[in-house]
């Protein structure tokens, strides 16, 4: 058996095709086509390993994947913005249908009605879940959506200062600062019980549940913002919002969120989808794509990308945002999840998370040397004060096949942020409690 020369399975041109095409072009070799590149820079050495067969590649990738701990092999109590919820089996094959997977942004509406209508559904589902008037077609993720909300609030109010509640997820706070700094927008921190804002504040930025899993006095924060002429921007968990009062009920002007919680794989941080909703009167300040319903020349109902004069391809440096490619496919994923779960399932999943988390918290709080660090109402996450540094606790939990909570000792002494969702069985919770009991 002889060695096969390399042939890309993705390139159909044969030597014969190439010869015919080069003749049509009037070139003698493919190298000729790169003559505009100065010769001293042309065809540099490229130190990339030799091609690999699909079989060997898969084995190599399986080797890498097997080096990770994950929620399939370990019981996991890690959340902090990324949540392990059950995803119905029907979603992956449906969402990865080639017609969805391999199409582009729907610039040609006549041949993109599938993506467009699905996006209209996304806008409906997200607006419904958050109790808000309108939604855009989605942002990159929850953190960048929150940062864009801060910028949008400054555009609306023509002010350049925002108040960030101290209990917001620190990664989100960092993203807000990364976006605000170059636009010379001042970001200052307020405590959740603050009673006043600095003059000229464009928005109060809060989170529900907050980073530690608890529910702030949101009505008070909202009223304080509005009394000062600022907008109230709330980043909310869409699963929690199926049970708890939604952002709209707190008079939020802009409500954003991480769509990952709606059954999207955790995938080590992405791709996710940022939910971005607001009051209808602000639609012309929205960042990103928006799909609207209309009719064709024959009066048939259909959908198009609309309100495009906000966007970069038309307004260039005056656009509301630079966002172009976003995460439409993940938007489709959460739309399917919401449709399948529906009115009953969404509420049920939220209540399961709440019930199991409260059971777990009560179990752990009863252990000697452990107690809950915070008071108030929480949803599916809570902070436990451990007898040892959380990193050490996690190391020992790992020995028992458990991925523990997030180390928040930077905020609360020996604090560990636990998350319990519907996928954590009572058996897992008992095993966690038993393991913690043995660590002192």
């Amino acid at each position, binding site marked *: 058996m002889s060695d096969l020369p390399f042939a890309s399975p993705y390139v159909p041109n044969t030597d014969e095709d190439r010869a015919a095409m080069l003749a049509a072009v009037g070139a003698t070799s493919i190298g000729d086509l790169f003559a505009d590149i100065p010769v001293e820079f042309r065809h540099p050495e490229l130190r990339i390993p030799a091609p690999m067969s699909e079989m060997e590649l898969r084995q190599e990738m399986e080797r890498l994947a097997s080096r990770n701990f994950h929620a399939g092999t370990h019981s996991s109590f890690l959340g902090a913005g990324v949540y392990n919820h059950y995803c119905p089996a029907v979603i992956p094959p449906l969402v990865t249908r080639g017609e969805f997977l391999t199409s582009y942004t729907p610039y040609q509406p006549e041949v993109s009605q599938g993506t467009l209508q699905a996006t209209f559904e996304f806008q409906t589902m997200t607006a419904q879940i958050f109790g808000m008037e309108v939604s855009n077609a989605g942002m990159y993720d929850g953190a960048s959506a929150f940062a864009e909300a801060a910028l949008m609030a400054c555009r609306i109010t023509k002010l350049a200062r925002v108040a960030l509640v101290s209990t917001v997820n620190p990664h989100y706070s960092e993203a807000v600062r990364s976006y605000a700094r170059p636009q010379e927008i001042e970001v200052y921190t307020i405590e959740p019980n603050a009673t006043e804002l600095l003059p000229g504040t464009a928005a109060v930025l809060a989170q529900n549940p907050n980073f530690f899993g608890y529910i702030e006095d949101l009505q008070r924060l909202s009223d304080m913002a509005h009394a000062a002429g600022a907008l109230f921007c709330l980043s909310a968990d869409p699963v929690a919002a199926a049970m708890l009062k939604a952002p709209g009920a707190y008079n939020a002007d802009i409500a954003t969120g991480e769509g990952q919680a709606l059954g999207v794989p955790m995938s080590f941080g*992405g791709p996710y989808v940022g939910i971005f909703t607001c009051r209808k009167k602000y639609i012309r300040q929205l960042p990103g794509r928006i799909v609207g319903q209309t009719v064709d020349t024959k009066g048939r109902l259909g959908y198009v990308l609309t309100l495009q004069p906000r966007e970069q391809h038309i307004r260039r440096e005056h656009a509301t945002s630079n966002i172009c490619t976003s995460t439409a496919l993940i938007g489709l994923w959460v739309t399917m999840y919401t449709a399948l779960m529906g009115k009953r399932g969404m509420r049920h999943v939220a209540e399961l998370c709440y019930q199991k988390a409260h059971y777990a918290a009560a179990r752990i709080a009863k252990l000697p040397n452990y107690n809950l660090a915070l008071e108030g109402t929480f949803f599916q996450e809570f902070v436990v004060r451990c007898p040892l540094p959380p990193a050490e606790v996690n190391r020992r939990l790992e020995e028992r096949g458990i991925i523990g909570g997030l180390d928040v000792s930077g905020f609360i002494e020996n604090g560990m942020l636990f998350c319990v969702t519907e996928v954590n069985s009572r058996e897992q919770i008992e095993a966690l409690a038993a393991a913690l009991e043995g660590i002192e």
Partner: protein
Amino acid sequence: MPTTNPNLHEEAHNKRRTLMERSRAGRTGVALPACDVPPQIMPDASMLRGDLELPEITEGEVVRYFTYLSQLNFSVDTNFYPLGSCTMKYNPRINEAVAALPGFAMAHPLQSERQSQGTLEAFFTLQERLREVTGMASTSLTPLAGAHGELAGVLTIRAALDARGQSQRRKMLIPDTAHGTNPASAAMAGFDVVSVPSDPNGNIDIEALRAQATGDLAGVMFTQPTTLGLFDRNAIEMCNIVHEAGGLVYGDGANMNALLGRVKLGEIGFDVVHMNLHKTFSTPHGGGGPGAGPICVTEEISPFLPGPVVEKHEDETYHSVMPARSIGRMGGYQGNFGVLIRALTYITLLGGEGMLEISGNAVLNANYLLAKLRSVFELPYDRSVMHEVVFSAKRRKGASALDVSKRLLDHGFHAPTMYFPLVVAEALMIEPTETESKETLDSFIEMLFAIDAEAAEDEAFLHGAPYNTPVSRMDEARAARQPHLRWEPTESVAD
């Protein structure tokens, strides 16, 4: 809701009912688990909501509905999709299989490093591959799409200039051929945007550039190859002028497909380059994302990269770190890992040889279209092209770029990018990619000749195209004038 004609289109309208219109009280799409812990005290009723209105629909109905919707789309899997500047190449399915491995898909981004060595090794390897392709010193994989990479990239330029004590440099030059994301990203990064014209050959106008090389110059955002599909022959001189004036050069790598293994942008003077992995490295576009927009930078700019980035230690372990003077986080975690792993899979399968296969065949296919179609359309810049060719449809008055594009849809070809770049009137930007066969290109060429003949005979016919698609041309003015952006709760549910 817009008025429709129910008698004419009842069946079509019925098929397109939305989820809420399909909802019937009492149906459900998932078998839900019972609660296996003792009942806990619920929060005060004042904290709960009572108004959640979502669809009630079975799994089978969801499948039929979304399958129907999918069939209304053109896609790379079903159609030739020569959308210029978007690199709509075939998306290998091994990439999907790898991304779905539980060790990747079910890994949490905040797991400890020790629990995440597989992902961190993958991150590190991809950083190295991209650094090699661009000839740069280091890589950050965190930007979540192309425009996000642009923003991250120009923020690193801003930070590097500030570190040089050059905070007065806030003028960013952008050629008139650039994508709209370039000026939008520069503005978001707090730069003042100044547009630079192109010269008659389609290169950047070097004299116009030189006139802007003043003490407030921050740099230039430059797409190579340009959106005209050309390798800009003035790029090296441009880099020299900008550097001598104290500025930095940002490279938009949207069109990197043409350059793989042919030239390294870092070697010709670029300081920062972003790449669109969803273009060049064949991760699926998904109807508008997800993407990934990693950036590669020079030694000087490395400390400012957005983080975290991954380092390999001598003991063969991998660690996430924030660069010393990082511009910070651009998103929640460490980038779109699910997209990044697909790109790494693609690069690993094809290897170095495969990279040359990509660029060589992509450029050959584009030049073949140029050679065959130049008698149908005007060619504004008569030169050999790289990954795509830009024609003007203005030769035949009466058949606009829009008309030609819409008529192509009738025959199962996705339209080229239209009316972009802005410097070409009636632009048709055609990017075939390397994954299309000569047979497909030939039938596309034949179809454009046929459409041209139709235009010569009856131009009004073309204005009415498309005729064979699920809908005809849409009333976009109406959509913008009366925004209808969601199902409204007040609507009566059709039955």
